[in-house]
């Protein structure tokens, strides 16, 4: 039975990664048509991608959104994780559960709801509206990562620091923060990747300053621009994978 499972896992693994491998393979293919057999090797789609102004501005939009989202989500996730792991208070378990509620709704519902809020209040759409949308789905992940980090940290260190006369703020910066650092970096990388790759909320909330996924979506309608999308996709996939691997490794590091 064990052999059957290993064999199955192998097939699963191949099928899991096959589409990703295809994207990368075709991004180096010297043909506008996405068809087998593969033609000669080329880097021209990558050159084309680097010279595309719309793409570059979409990239900078995505960077601004993802960096801001990662910092804000990690900050608020960290504070929330400290609250629920370091204190006993009324409503603690309710708070823990309710922080995950945004993940229990189809994104299209939250997307149209946020769009309605911004349009009906006259705030309009901007990079800030996408950030707000992304904070909603990234904060639960940040909280999840940091809760497990703080759970593994004994409060004794903090107590010792305070017993030795350090004020709370100094204790936070000199004891809590360094100990939680792997979790914080892990959360930053994870939320950055989620925000950078997120499409549905960005689609509804970005209006005329598209993010990279929204830009790719708009290019998919034109068959001749598909190779350019694939080149871009390959870069996004590789970079995302590296960030996630680092994030997960930091996460599994023992406190």
């Amino acid at each position: 039975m064990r052999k059957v499972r290993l064999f199955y896992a192998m097939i699963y693994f191949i099928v899991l990664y096959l589409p990703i491998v295809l994207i990368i393979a075709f991004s180096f293919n010297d043909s506008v048509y996405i068809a087998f057999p593969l033609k000669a090797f080329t880097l021209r789609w990558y050159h084309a991608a680097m010279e595309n102004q719309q793409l570059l501005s979409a990239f900078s939009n995505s960077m601004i959104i993802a960096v801001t989202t990662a910092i804000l989500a990690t900050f608020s996730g960290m504070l929330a994780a400290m609250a629920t792991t370091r204190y006993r208070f009324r409503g603690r378990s309710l708070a823990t559960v309710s922080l995950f509620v945004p993940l229990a709704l189809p994104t299209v519902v939250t997307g149209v709801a946020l769009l309605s809020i911004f349009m009906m209040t006259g705030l309009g759409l901007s990079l800030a509206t996408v950030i707000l949308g992304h904070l909603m789905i990234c904060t639960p992940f940040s909280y999840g990562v940091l809760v497990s980090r703080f759970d593994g940290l004994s409060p004794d260190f903090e107590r010792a620091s305070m017993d030795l006369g350090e004020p709370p703020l100094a204790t936070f910066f000199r004891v809590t923060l360094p100990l939680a650092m792997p979790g914080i970096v892990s959360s930053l990388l994870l939320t950055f990747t989620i925000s950078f790759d997120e499409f549905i909320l960005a689609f509804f909330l970005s209006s005329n300053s598209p993010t990279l996924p929204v830009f790719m979506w708009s290019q998919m309608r034109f068959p001749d621009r598909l190779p350019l999308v694939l080149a871009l996709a390959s870069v996004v996939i590789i970079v995302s994978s590296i960030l996630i691997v680092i994030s997960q490794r930091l996460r599994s590091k023992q406190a």
Partner: protein
Amino acid sequence: MSRRSNSPYFLLTPAMLTTVATLAICMVVLMVLAVARQSYLDIDLTFSTHNVELALTSPLILKLMVKSALISFGVTLLSLVLAYPIAYLLAFDLTRNKLLWLMLFTLPCWISYLLRVLSWKLILGYQGMINTSLMGLGIIDQPIEALLYNSTSVVIALTHAWAPFAILPIYVSLEKIDRSLIRASGDLSDTPMQTFFRVILPLSLPGVTAAFVLVFIPTFGDYVTPHLLGGPTGVMIGNFIAMQFGASNNWPLGAAVALLAMLVATLLVCIFIAGSRHAIKAIR
């Protein structure tokens, strides 16, 4: 750090504002919109049940809701069945590099969902991998058009995208099972099959349930996959909602259907959870 103070509430405030509070406002706005009317480009906020009635009685919306539920249910069951052996392997068979393998099997979850859906076009498309390979092998003369733009392609792409998500919670619940219970079952002359159905499966049920919710909710409301791969017959309720806020420009109807879809998804999840609890009692 005093143990009894208002500090935890202060600490929770930023996270609560961006999640729970924003979500609450979202729900209120959807409810207000759902009882409004679209008049050309403006929204008339005088109370009207027109769109709610339409959402509840329109045969088209009902049809899309049923189809979304069926597709999403099929995808979720497929995902659970496909993911379970992997979670089992990671929990029981592997002893070294467990976390590394777990990461490799779930890594694609975190990578752009849009791109993973797009990649299925390269496989199932007119000149995609399957068609060109079959033609190269001389099995078919011309490309099979039926591979793309129907509900089957939607099910394939969605299952591929979401099955890895199901591995994680199932793995966690399998990992938690006390190994002595499994040994005890064997010592009491249960066959491995009996041990699986009477001990392991019931004890991993919390993970299976979590995986169900994790896959069912997003696939039910998805509109990216049906849009890219579904063609005319693969449209789902998410496409309808997105369209009301886009080309069709009927936000109140969109809001009413969005609320309805949310309720239906939640209700179906609750039914599944109740059903699985019942099933486990029956097995035991």
